[in-house]
């Protein structure tokens, strides 16, 4: 038996070239110099975070630092120079180097009949693409004319010492704005793991990040909730000021999930437990949480919560009405990770409950009264984390004749190679196939070095820009459901295209794109002769009940 040292967090630093001198210089920078290093635990020292969780980046004037809509996993600290944040409505997608989402016409779709090479899949006309790539580089796919941008858009300039991108990094949300370097700039990119530790152990960073969130996003978020929508601005201000931010679980849940061979552990400490005293309304800002109630010797999932859901309102309302002995009737626990806003009870008493004309709906009781086996599909979907999908490919095996027409249809709309495998996990007569689910929390996007995998801005589908994909496999390794495949590409003669330096085949990430460019929607659904294949979102619980 051979042995290796246990893998550690900083085995692979963010930047291999970060030197001790760089670290010393960075620690002297005001944003770090003010931090009390003694507050950091021995195993996660401040110096270690700077050394291993950050990297120095140099940008030329007009270079795009982050693109609006990209999913980020890092924040940036401006060290030298200035950058400009482009405010809404932002830059057009064509300037940001993304593929366009224009649908094909009927003729273009039809021409795939003879353009597809079924004998040679994944053909790329590489010479033409190389020229196109070279010319687009010259034209500036990631370079923009900064003067023109400033003329046509509202921008905010950020100078040395300013931080940006922290909200998207911590919440794994999309970047809310595009940031462009104004001048030759040096930026420190801090990956979210390090940012999380800085926020956790340093009050200054925590306060800075929370203040930014409060100023920019919290009031908007609260205002979108029907409970707070009608509040006057000053009351909303008070609610925002009293609201607490909490994060539970692990942001890299996909790594742990994959390690456990794709099944969600139920041994997770709850955020609040059944029987607890309700002290505030829990609003889910991101991620998922499971709502459970104790039954026999286990926990029964009554439902799950995702962004926009809340928990505990009914109990708080009944407490306000003076009912005695009120406690929470269910527990909630993070599924992977969850970002929660806790609105304290006293705030609800002061600003919300007096304005409620009707008591809140009690859905939990109804859920608990359902026959036990009714929930098995939901329990399974939660355990397997299929609830993350918005376009999950489900096959009704009681109808499917295994003809593979869906696979052939996919291949004939994607250059002769299908983008999914008609195989996957099964529950009862349902199969969730290995096809991209276009997740609510697309962890595959985290870490893509080129932004090739992104959400299509028009349709919201998670798609890959083949031209900017460098075949690094980060997305394929991150996908918790193994729904991204790496494929070797070929020239029109059928020869594999190889790297000229190493001779190794060039790989491209390949996955279902929901036929976002095809007229008529996903070919797999249209091709199924028995209506056995459907694309569903587990979020639509009513539909789930229908499916059951």
């Amino acid at each position, binding site marked *: 038996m051979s042995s290796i040292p246990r893998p550690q967090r900083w085995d692979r630093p963010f930047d291999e070239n970060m030197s001790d001198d760089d670290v010393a210089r960075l620690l002297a920078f005001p944003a770090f110099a003010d931090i009390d290093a003694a507050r950091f635990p021995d195993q996660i020292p401040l110096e270690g975070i700077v050394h291993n969780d950050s990297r120095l980046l140099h940008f030329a004037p007009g270079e795009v630092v982050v693109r609006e809509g990209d999913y980020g996993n890092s924040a940036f600290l401006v060290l030298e120079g200035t950058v400009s944040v482009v405010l809404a409505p932002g830059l057009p997608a064509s300037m940001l180097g993304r593929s366009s989402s224009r649908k094909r016409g009927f003729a273009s779709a039809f021409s795939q009949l003879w353009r597809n090479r079924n004998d040679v899949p994944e053909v790329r006309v590489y010479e033409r693409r190389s020229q196109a790539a070279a010319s687009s580089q010259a034209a500036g796919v990631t370079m923009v004319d900064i003067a023109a941008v400033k003329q046509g858009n509202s921008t905010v300039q950020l100078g040395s010492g300013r931080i940006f991108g922290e909200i998207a990094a911590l919440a794994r949300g999309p970047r809310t704005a595009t940031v462009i370097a104004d001048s030759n700039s040096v930026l420190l990119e801090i990956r979210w793991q390090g940012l999380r530790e800085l926020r956790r152990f340093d009050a200054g960073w925590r306060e800075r990040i929370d203040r930014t969130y409060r100023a920019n996003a919290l009031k908007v978020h609260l205002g979108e909730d029907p409970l707070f929508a009608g509040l006057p601005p000053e009351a909303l201000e008070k609610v925002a000021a009293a609201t607490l931010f909490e994060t539970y679980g692990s942001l890299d849940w996909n790594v742990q999930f994959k390690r456990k061979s794709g099944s969600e552990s139920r041994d997770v400490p709850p955020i609040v437990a059944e029987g607890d005293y309700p002290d505030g309304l829990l609003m889910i800002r991101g991620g998922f949480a499971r709502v459970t109630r104790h039954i026999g010797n286990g926990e029964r999932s009554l439902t799950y919560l995702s962004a926009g859901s809340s928990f505990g309102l009914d109990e708080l309302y009944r407490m306000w009405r003076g009912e005695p002995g009120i406690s929470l009737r269910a527990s909630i626990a993070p599924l992977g990770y969850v970002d929660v806003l806790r609105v304290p009870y006293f705030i609800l008493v002061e600003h919300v409950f007096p304005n409620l004309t009707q008591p809140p709906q009690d859905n939990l009781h109804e859920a608990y009264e359902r026959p036990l086996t009714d929930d098995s599909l939901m329990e399974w979907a939660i355990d397997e984390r299929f609830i993350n999908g918005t376009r999950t490919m489900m096959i009704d095996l009681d109808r499917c004749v295994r003809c593979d027409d869906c696979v052939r249809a996919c291949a004939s709309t994607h250059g002769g190679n299908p983008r999914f495998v008609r195989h996957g996990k099964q529950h009862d007569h349902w199969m969730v196939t290995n096809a991209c689910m276009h997740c609510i929390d697309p962890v595959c996007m985290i870490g893509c070095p080129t932004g090739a995998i992104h959400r299509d801005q028009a349709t919201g589908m998670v798609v890959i820009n083949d031209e900017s994909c460098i075949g690094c496999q980060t997305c394929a390794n991150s996908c918790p459901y193994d729904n991204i495949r790496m494929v070797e590409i070929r020239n029109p003669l059928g020869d594999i295209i190889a790297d000229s330096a190493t001779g190794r085949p060039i790989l491209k990430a390949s996955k279902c794109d929901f036929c976002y460019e095809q007229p008529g929607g996903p070919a797999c659904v*249209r091709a199924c002769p028995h209506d056995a294949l459907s694309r569903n979102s587990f979020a639509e619980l009513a539909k789930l009940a229908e499916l059951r």
Partner: protein
Amino acid sequence: MTFQGSLRFALRMALGAGAVVLVAVVALIDRSQRLDLLHPELVTGWVLLAAVVFLALLNVRKKLSMVPVGRASDWVAAHVVLGVVVIVIYAFHARAIWPSGYELALALLFYAVILSGLIGYLLQRMAPASLANLGYEVIWERIPAELADMRERIEASILECARETGSEVLPRLYREELAWYFRRPRFVLASLVGTGASSSWVHHRLDSVSIYLRGKEIEHATFLRECARRKVHIDRAYAIQGLLKCWLLVHVPATYGFLVLVLWHLILVHVYLV
């Protein structure tokens, strides 16, 4: 029901209604032309040909999955409904179950198409649930690879057993009997009918030698039993999926054969009879 669902339900209803109307119109024309001592076979023949060509277009639809020409399931529904209509129109047209001459070949091909279609329809309704109930899903094309992988693991286990125990029982059993069983899907017909022959064959052999096994050998035999259980599922999946594919091997060629003879029939009718 969603709007889309309602629309599709309405489409299916319209299909049914259209089929009834088509049959009624053909029946009326047939009757009126017969009363007028005309040739209703000409009208019914052309209607029949048009219907058969439309039925054959389903295969073209399958090749055109990249263009929005309707959902395949709607095409299949139309195919089934029109297939039934074609039987009625054929009865009006032919007026004989066993015609003579080359028309007998035409009739036989027609019956082959209809019969294989009906069998296929029933199979597609019943077989998927049997496959789903296996609880073990395997892609047809992957079956040889699955079996090869299984054989590899079994042979590794047998070798390990021989090395660990020095006993010849399991290696001999594998060489003499089980290698044949695990080489490819076996007991296809029995698996199709569900007699359990595959399962009893392999378990009988494992039971027969169980009295010679001790200690570690029992562990390896247990692994063999587990593989045998999976093999039984694979045999059944192979049989059912094979049947789901086989009926098309009759239906589609018979359709093309029928269309070729129809062409010949058309030429003869228009050159010599009309």
